[in-house]
C-alpha cells in the first residue's frame, strides 16, 4: 500500500431497518472502497444485528441488504470486527452472524473469515490505530 493510504474504520452501532444508518453506512463503505484505502468495519451495540443470518424482509416491503455484506470481500474489505460484549448482551454468538469470507491474495487466494470477534478492550486499541473513524 502506498504512503497516502489511510486507515478508515466504519463504526456501526444501529440495528438495520428501524433507522437508515445501517444502509447509509454500507453504501458509503462501498463507495469509499473505490478509493482503495485500508478499510475496516466494526459492529458494536445494536450494530451487530446488521450482520445476523436469516433476514427476510418480504413482509415489511423493504429491501433486504444483508446479502450485500457478503460482497465486501470482493471490495477488499476483509477486516470486520464484532464486539464480544455486544453479542453477549444480545444472546448472540458468532454462529448467528453471516459467514463473511474473503480471498487472501497473498496466500494463493485462500478463503478466509472476515469476521473477528474482539473484546471492547481490543476494539479500543483498533480504534486507536485508525486515521479516520466514521460513526453510523
Amino acid at each position: 500500500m502506498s504512503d497516502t493510504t489511510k486507515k478508515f474504520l466504519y463504526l456501526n452501532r444501529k440495528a438495520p431497518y428501524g433507522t437508515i444508518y445501517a444502509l447509509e453506512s454500507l453504501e458509503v463503505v462501498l463507495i469509499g472502497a473505490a478509493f482503495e484505502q485500508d478499510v475496516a468495519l466494526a459492529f458494536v451495540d445494536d450494530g451487530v444485528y446488521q450482520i445476523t443470518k436469516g433476514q427476510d424482509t418480504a413482509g415489511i416491503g423493504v429491501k433486504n441488504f444483508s446479502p450485500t455484506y457478503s460482497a465486501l470481500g470482493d471490495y477488499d474489505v476483509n477486516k470486520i470486527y464484532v464486539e464480544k460484549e455486544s453479542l453477549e448482551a444480545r444472546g448472540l454468538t458468532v454462529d448467528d452472524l453471516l459467514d463473511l469470507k474473503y480471498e487472501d491474495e497473498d496466500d494463493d487466494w485462500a478463503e478466509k473469515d472476515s469476521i473477528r470477534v474482539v473484546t471492547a478492550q481490543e476494539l479500543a486499541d483498533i480504534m486507536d490505530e485508525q486515521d479516520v473513524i466514521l460513526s453510523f
Partner: protein
Amino acid sequence: MTILHTVNKSPFEDSSLESCLRCSKAGSTILLIEDGIYGATEGTIISDKVKAAMADRTVCALQPDVEARGMKDKIIEGIKLVDYAGFVDLATENDTVESWL
C-alpha cells in the same frame, strides 16, 4: 380500561420497553414492533424482565418485523407472533393503544 402497549425501539438503545414493563397493568397486552422485536429474543440482558412480565401480561411480537431481522428462531417461548391483521385485531380489542415511542 384495557390498553394495548406498543414498543418500537430496541431495548438496548432506549428505555421504552423497560418503562412499558414497569407501567403496564396485569391483563394488558404488549406488542413489540420494528426494532422493538429485539426485546422478544431469548438470552439477552433483558429477557428475564420480559419473561417476568409474561406471568400476568400477554407479550406479542409483529412477525414481519421479526422475520425481517432474522430473529424468528430466537423468540422467547410463549411470545405470540402476530401479523398485520393480528395487530389490527389487538388494536380494536383494546380500549386504547399506548405507543411507547
